[in-house]
């Protein structure tokens, strides 16, 4: 038989036209689709003058071509059994793309990420996804930890979560002999820990989702209440004189919790002697008693939609809100000026010590603030240059840290301490501005709309994960979905009425789900895979166990604060 293996290396003889720009495909495929859609065509051989023509297509290639075409006729497109695996198809580096003009250029070698996103776009997407409502609690967190401690903690948590994110991204590459191109992080957990891994990662992912949805509900009630109050006061030309503590100048900052002995609740006490209309309004528009319920009527129908793709168009509102918050904070800081004093251990009348023992509350908030580990693989898959993944991830984390630091530091530093104490900084820093303040009114409106569009998306994600795993069908019937939505909405309403401390909710749910996805799973999987390859050394083992202990401590200590 003729020697056929020697020409299996190169399929085609290239005629590279150097002027053609070898850009990769402009269509973004899902990796699993790509394998079944991968074209395997060879140009038709001219068989008229068999002996004259230079062999452009090897025998091996044309045999494989016929084979693949024939096999593709034997099954449905969905059946993966007869799809050519990667190791029998020539590597991307050996494929050429023909232009109709007859010349060919070589495809740039691409690995799993057939993405079209440049580094800048990827970094922006990661930043955008990470920026959530926890940004509103960062100043409070800094206050709880003390200024210096707070800054150090923010930077250290950023680095720690970045390292764990790096471990997540690299986890797929360490799995031998299995095709992991379509895997997300829960699939990796299932590979290492069996169905326990799958169920537990589902559970923790749901914890973070439902925690986020509850926070959203509380915030939405808050913002809706303030917006309504602003509009009502504006229409009726009421100049509010709150009974709460406030600064007496043109940029009022209020301290809502001072009046009720440091225990924040959502009641604001406004007494008007002779105005029954206002009393009526006050009765029907109450932050913790009625507004959360009005939201039910608005949002519950939206949650029942089968596909929330309509809402994903409003994704841009999130970025706009964050940028507006940055602008708002800068403006307020310019107007209010800086008020910082450094007392290291003592609590003074207006300032908090630099080092406080409540700093775990900040770490809890930051675990959720820096959380992206359940979808980082998907986000980086679309990066054009996969070798820059680590660099882009680090840049994104740096950007996020800088944003949090900026807002946290500015709000904390510019909080007018002589009349008010730093302890007044609320868990949602917008609460420190009265509802008559127009700049924060605009911020609240932005955030309200943004949250209303993200809420159905979160509900859809929770529904897909929960119902998909329990019933196997993401929309079993309207009743299943309705019951699930009622539970979620009910939880949100109850929290909004009785425990509207978003800082608390964020730190509990953050520490809980961060425990699994940020601390335990990446480190444990790394240790196990190193052990399987016999590359485990004592320093690495100790370091990663230390990370796991940190995660556990993070969760446990939340309950003691």
């Amino acid at each position, binding site marked *: 038989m003729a020697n056929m293996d020697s020409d299996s290396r190169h399929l085609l003889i290239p005629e590279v036209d150097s002027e053609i720009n070898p850009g990769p495909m402009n269509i973004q495929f899902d990796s699993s689709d790509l394998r079944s859609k991968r074209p395997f065509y060879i140009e038709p051989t001219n068989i008229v003058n068999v002996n004259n023509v230079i062999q452009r297509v090897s025998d091996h290639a044309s045999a494989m071509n016929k084979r693949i075409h024939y*096999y593709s006729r034997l099954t449905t497109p969905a059946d993966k059994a007869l799809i050519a695996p990667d190791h029998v198809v020539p590597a991307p580096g050996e494929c050429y793309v023909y232009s109709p003009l007859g010349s060919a250029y070589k495809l740039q070698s691409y690995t799993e990420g057939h993405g079209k996103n440049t580094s800048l776009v990827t970094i922006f997407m990661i930043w955008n996804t990470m920026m959530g409502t926890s940004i509103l609690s960062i100043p409070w967190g800094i206050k709880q930890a003390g200024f210096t401690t707070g800054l150090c903690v923010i930077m250290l948590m950023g680095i720690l979560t970045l390292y764990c994110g790096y471990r997540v991204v690299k986890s797929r590459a360490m799995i031998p002999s299995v095709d992991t191109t379509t895997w997300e992080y829960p699939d990796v957990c299932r590979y290492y820990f069996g169905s326990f891994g799958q169920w537990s990662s589902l559970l923790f992912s749901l914890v973070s989702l439902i925690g986020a949805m509850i926070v959203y509900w509380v915030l939405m009630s808050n913002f809706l209440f303030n917006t309504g109050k602003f509009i009502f006061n504006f229409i009726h030309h009421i100049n509010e004189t709150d009974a709460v503590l406030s600064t007496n100048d043109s940029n009022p900052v209020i301290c809502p919790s001072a009046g009720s002995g440091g225990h924040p609740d959502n009641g604001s006490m406004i007494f008007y002697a002779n105005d029954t209309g206002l009393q009526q309004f006050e009765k029907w528009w109450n932050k913790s008693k009625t507004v959360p319920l009005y939201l039910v009527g608005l949002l519950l129908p939206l949650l029942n939609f089968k596909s929330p793709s309509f809402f994903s168009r409003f994704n841009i509102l999130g970025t706009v809100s964050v940028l507006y918050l940055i602008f708002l904070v800068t403006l307020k800081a310019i107007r209010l000026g800086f008020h910082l004093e450094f007392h290291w251990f003592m609590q003074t009348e207006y300032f908090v010590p630099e080092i406080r023992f409540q700093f775990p509350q900040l770490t809890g908030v930051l675990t959720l603030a820096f959380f992206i580990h359940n979808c980082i693989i998907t986000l980086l898959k679309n990066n054009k240059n996969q070798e820059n993944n680590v660099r882009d991830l680090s840049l994104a984390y740096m950007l996020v840290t800088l944003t949090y630091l900026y807002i946290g530091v500015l709000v904390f530093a510019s909080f007018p301490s002589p009349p008010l104490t730093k302890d007044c900084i609320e868990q949602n820093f917008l609460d420190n501005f009265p509802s008559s303040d127009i700049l924060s009114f605009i911020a609240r409106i932005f955030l309200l709309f943004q949250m209303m569009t993200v809420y159905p998306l979160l509900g859809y994600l929770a529904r897909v994960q929960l119902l998909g795993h329990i019933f196997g069908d993401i929309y079993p019937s309207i009743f299943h979905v309705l019951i699930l939505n009622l539970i979620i909405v009910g939880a949100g309403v109850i929290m909004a009425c009785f425990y509207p401390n978003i800082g608390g909710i964020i730190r509990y749910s953050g520490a809980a789900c961060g425990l699994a996805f940020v601390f335990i799973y990446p480190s444990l999987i790394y240790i196990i895979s190193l052990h399987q390859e016999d590359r485990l050394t004592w320093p690495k083992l100790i370091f990663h166990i230390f990370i796991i202990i940190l995660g556990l401590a993070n969760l446990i200590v939340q309950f003691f604060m």
Partner: protein
Amino acid sequence: MEESDAQRKMEKENLGPRMDPPIGEPEGSLGWVLPNTAMKKKVLLMGKSGSGKTSMRSIIFANYIARDTRRLGATILDRLHSLQINSSLSTFSLVDSVGNTKTFDVEHSHVRFLGNLVLNLWDCGGQDTFMENYFTSQRDNIFRNVEVLIYVFDVESRELEKDMHYYQSCLEAILQNSPDAKIFCLVHKMDLVQEDQRDLIFKEREEDLRRLSRPLECSCFRTSIWDETLYKAWSSIVYQLIPNVQQLEMNLRNFAEIIEADEVLLFERATFLVISHYQCKEQRDAHRFEKISNIIKQFKLSCSKLAASFQSMEVRNSNFAAFIDIFTSNTYVMVVMSDPSIPSAATLINIRNARKHFEKLERVDGPKQCLLMC
């Protein structure tokens, strides 16, 4: 998507009488009995579940794989989980809750293979007690009248001991019921092994299998659906099954020389596996047999969509002419002529005349004759 719907529709129309399992039968015994297959000789294709038998059969016999794993789940069918009839080969496929397919043939097999052979496909070993019981209780029925046993081993399997154990129990059954059967072992999925280790691993396995199979003789092949080894292995198997193949080859050579053909190929009818060939000069493409087979099978699939069946084909250009036509009741012939001045009609007459002689050869007891043309 339309082709699969049309295919499925056609398969539904060919459905024979549906066999319903009787309700209330105790576990482990199957109410409906395998009909008497004493008349037909069988080719058993066996191997562990997931070793690639269904794909192999689909590729060799050009059958559409219809893997439908919707669950039925009610009363007695809970036992069986899901039942699906693939009518082109009348196999029952059981799909259990994990998604593994277990297939077994019942009669009404429509694929005639080399005249009177019927292909039966069995998953062997490693299933739940239901299948174990069924297998044991029907063992004699399954292993009676076997002409060929083809046992498929997955080279990546991690349970070598178990695989060998099941193989041996099949051999015992063969020894009891059909001691004259020919045994072939296919070490499958070789593409998953590194290229430089393939020969080594195959030799190891071959030695083990030869040793285990004594006193029976087995031939081993290494195969993979992603290269030419599967086609070659099955061609070798078919070659060994033809009773008077040397005589066939000699007559083929005479035929080719008489009609001045460049190459003459003889294909088995159902699978287009090359039984024998004659070429008068060196051909460039070593993979041409498999390619032709795949092309024609693909064409047959297209024809079947229109409820048409492929009979013959002529391809001609200024350099050559090729004729593919039905030859005997079990074979197709392909004649390649490189002299374009010979008109098609002449070659077709030659083929037609040769047909009669080769038919006589196929009848095993026919007198030995040389091919003479006047």
